[in-house]
């Protein structure tokens, strides 16, 4: 960690989000809100179409963090705000790009705060996305 500096870019990872991923996430998580798989219901409640679970987006961004950290249990704290829903077309797919930078360093605690940006189809979908990662 001693070689890290605040502002350093740590990683960029791109994920493909499609309807199959949303169904997989629904099944894995138990979140069966129909706005995440049913176009009719999504439009009836005023959305522009089926949207990704915010938690699927947050989970994908976390995977980028743990891949960099090398230890899935190293994330001590992780919070996000969901700014815009990701509308997932059918047919089609959306690219989600996640970038992590060093937001803060605490050498005594042995932690790095990773500040994340997440963009889908050019739109920022997460704000204040920060993960506190143990590095030893």
């Amino acid at each position: 960690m001693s070689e890290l500096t605040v502002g350093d870019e740590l990683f960029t990872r791109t994920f493909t989000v499609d309807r199959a991923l949303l169904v997989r996430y629904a099944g894995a998580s138990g979140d069966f809100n129909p706005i995440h798989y049913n176009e009719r219901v999504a439009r009836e409640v005023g959305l522009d179409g089926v949207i990704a679970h915010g938690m699927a987006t947050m989970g994908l961004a976390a995977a980028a963090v743990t891949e960099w950290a090398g230890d899935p249990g190293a994330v001590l704290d992780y919070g996000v705000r969901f700014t815009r829903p990701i509308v997932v077309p059918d047919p089609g797919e959306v690219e989600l790009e996640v970038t992590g930078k060093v937001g803060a360093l605490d050498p005594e605690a042995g932690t790095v705060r990773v500040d994340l940006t997440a963009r889908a189809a050019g739109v920022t979908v997460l704000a204040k996305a920060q993960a506190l990662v143990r590095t030893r």
Partner: protein
Amino acid sequence: MTDSAARPTSVNTTLVGRSFSPTETYPVSAVKIAEMAAATGSAHPAHTDRDAARALGYDDVVAPPTFAVVVAQRAEQAYIADPESGIDFSRVVHAEERFTHHRPIVAGDLLRTTVHVDAVTERAGIAMVSTRAEIVDDDGAPVATVRSTLAVRGEGR
């Protein structure tokens, strides 16, 4: 849509401070950890291979960082699905989420969750509902705190 056109939501603002005690224990399985890892794009072997997890110091396969939402959302249903909450699930979108891990979750954990309704505020036809799920193990030791804010849109939004 202007604010003046927004009507109040049906969300009950009087439940702030209410707690929903755990009714069932959630047993963490290796299978569910593997499903959540696959659904969130994490191929780390410590999610699926016990030896890889043990090499990192865990007793069994370790959960991805957002796994606790599975446990928390089941417990939150005691509040959200209660007709008294006034929350129409189809009009809910997620606004904020935060996980504080007191220790990593591993397969074999037996988890119990207490849900607290921390805040309900309403403005311009959107109710913001903040809950806090405190997850403990079978010894009662803290495992994770999951803070969640849902935005519930009223009919006018």
